[in-house]
């Protein structure tokens, strides 16, 4: 079960963060949010912050999956979990990148 978990965790977290950011976007647009942080409109700042968090979590996962303490004893499971770890990271970076440049709520 632990090995299955190692294989599934990164993409699962991707799915969770993808849905969360999509939901956050919906929430921000549903409720009037206004203000400026660091020269960014508040909505954009929230979204970018969420994006950065999502990436950070994936990076932590990759490090964990490679660490000798947490990695699987089976070389095959190690290989697959590293691959799915990278899938999680790349998918997070790529699928959420619109928060940086597209218009929101329009």
């Amino acid at each position, binding site marked *: 079960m632990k090995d299955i978990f190692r294989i599934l965790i990164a993409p699962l977290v991707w799915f969770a963060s993808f849905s969360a950011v999509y939901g956050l976007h919906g*929430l921000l647009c549903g409720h009037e949010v206004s203000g400026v942080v660091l020269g960014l409109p508040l909505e954009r700042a929230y979204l970018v912050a969420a994006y950065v968090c999502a990436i950070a979590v994936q990076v932590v996962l990759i490090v964990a999956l490679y660490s000798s303490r947490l990695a699987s004893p089976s*070389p095959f499971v190690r290989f697959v979990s590293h691959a799915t770890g990278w899938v999680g990271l*790349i998918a997070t970076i790529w699928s959420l990148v619109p928060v940086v440049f597209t218009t929101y709520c329009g």
Partner: protein
Amino acid sequence: MNALERHRKLTTIWASEKGFKGWFSTVNHTDLGRMFLVTAFFFFIIGGLLAMLIRVQLATPHSAFAGPEIYNQIFTMHGTIMMFLFAIPTFEGLAIYLLPKILGTRDLAFPRLTAYGYWCYAFGGSMMLVAMVFGIAPNGGWFMYPPLSSAIYSPGINTDFWLIGITFVEISAIAAAVEITVSILKYRAPGMSLDKMPIFAWYALITALMILTGFPPLILGSVLLEVERAFGFPFFQADLGGDSLLWQHLFWLFGHPEVYIIFLPAAGVISTILPVMCRTTLLGYGWIVAAALALAFLSFGLWVHHMFTTGIPHMGLAFFSAASTLVAVPTGVQIFAWIGTMWKGRPELRLPMLHLLGFFFTFVIGGLTGVMVAVVPFDWQAHDTAFITAHLHYVLFGGFVFPIFAGIYYWLPHVTGRRRFFRLGELAFALVFIGFHVTFLAMHWVGLLGQRRRIPTYAPEDGWTAINLISSVGSFVLAIGIGMILIDVILHVLTASRGRRNPWGAGTLEWAMPTPPLAYNFASLPHITSRDPLVDEPDLAVQLARGEGYLGTPRNTWRETLTVDIASGKPDMHVIYPSNTRLPILMSAVTGVFFVSLLLKFYWTVPVAVIGVALLVWRWVWGLGRGADLAPLSIGHGITLPNAGMTDRSPGWWGSVFLLTANATFFGSLLFGFAFLWTVAPGWPPPVWFDPSMTELGAGLSGAIIGPIAMRLAKSVNGKGRNSVTGATMALFGAILIGVACAAMMWRTPSPVDHAYGATLFVLGSYGLFHACLAMLMTSFLIARIVRGFTSAVRRAEFSIIGLWVDYTSVIGVLVLLAAHLPGVLQ
């Protein structure tokens, strides 16, 4: 004991009843796999005939062949039958037939559940056929969008047939998915660690997990829409706080993964057959596993690309457009692994290989048009035109039907034990290939010229006449080709020339047995040391028949097998299967009474059916127990294992884990729906909020705390060999508290027909109440078991299983009650 005696003894233990009576009582995976496949192909023929009717209608402008009302039914039923009654059941049938054989064991994890699933499929499918015969078939298109499918615009019974019939069929998909998951994880030959699993098992495992998480949103959507139609709860009505877009989200949350649920098993077939056809091994096994996993996950992040034209904000579109382009990567990895396999080997153009080439050519084109429509501006142009239907057939026919034809020709000698005698297949392939491309290339083209999908007719001035005629001619060539394949297969089954064992020289275990296969698969179970056991050990079949593997000596009248540790493949439990019984067909018939009563609005028979199912479930599970402890049993080669009923992680526990996974997805989708309506739907806030009550909330929460603690107590007391009735009774009491709190919530919720808020709370409450009743039933069952002496410090499996359900009930109970009471408390 010599091989023949062993065979006789095993056959008396494992055989199904003789003759057609055996169909109704069999629980054997070979029988049921074949029944699934035959039924699925029956539906393929029906769906194909409907496709012919579509092409007849569209062949000429102003066609008078069918009126719009009938035409709507024809294309809706074509899509519905192909997706739900052909594609998914074909996967289930193939997996059910093949998995135990390819994994080196004797049957699937829950044989009676296999049978129950089959009968739900057969009965649910028949409901759809009945609707068609009477001309009252569903007519809202295969994705049934409200408001078109709501009671106002579709008042007849047509839509109810879809919502209720398909939900009935989905029971079989969920049952099969639980079964397949547990079987692959636990029911393997000793030594078969995860990296030695045949690649088909990986694909089947991933597909099954996707069914468990992909189907619940659709089931939820169907339940909500049916409740709206029957009782007027306005989930999808914008003027009453609902939102018809909620349906689209729920549907496509299922619908896009569905496409990969159809493709992945086919990819499993390809990855199995291709290396054999090329006389080599699969290139990049680990990469393929990782790519399939990636594909499965990414496919859950794409659903909104079916909704690009619904006015979703730009950023939302961009997320899903980006994710949609991303799936091309893992698909590409698989394609390259297959091309590399061909490169590395020596491809031989035998019949299955022809169909694989047909797959490559077609699927790559389908993938490319898929990337085209993932680009939002292009999709705005092509949406709802024949271009889309053409694209989806390239993917579905190319990605599923061609590989399945390859699979049929590859495994037919296994099913029949015969050799193909007539050579119709090659010609049939040519006709199918040419016919398919003529039909659907033409449809791409006419789609770009502006022909919309689902139109019953068009005018000569549109300039689509010639192309449509070409397409229709192509489809008849295709139909003749498929007809010839059918004849070829029937001739194969009827001609009596015996084939030799393992005609393709394959390396996987399903060929290490006599064909047609025996009821018990293997006289003894192999020990696996590599991915292609038959390559290392060409006469493995003979050794197994001589009883040199595990469990080679039949014991009592037990149908025995063993399970293994998931990762390492070390044997860990001994299992005794139930034998032939009519209980599954009976239970699915009673389940059918439930669905038909809903359909015909005979509400007084609904509770009768529910109680009937509960009684049958009770009987079903009761039969599994033992009155006395079993000492650990020898499986040969000096290994002894505890029986599954004497462990904490029994097959029933694993089955519950995955059933609860599906259940949790259902509940999660319901919460998503609630949040979606709350934030997105117009018509909020609701006119009245739920009036919170500290008493009810407190009662429910204490029930949720008592239940899990009491179950843990019961388990530990039982482990010390003492009487655990007190703990179980306390758990029962906890479930009653949750039930009462949920019932009170349903009673007091603001009128569910006036606003979607009240409607959603009502459904949440009934979900909680349903699970509380389930937990009451289970804890009562446990009490009965303890009192009747079916449990002991050793016989403890049921405590863990029921504990799991009690925990689940408590968690969802808390969430349900908080969802209702919290907003009021906070205000």
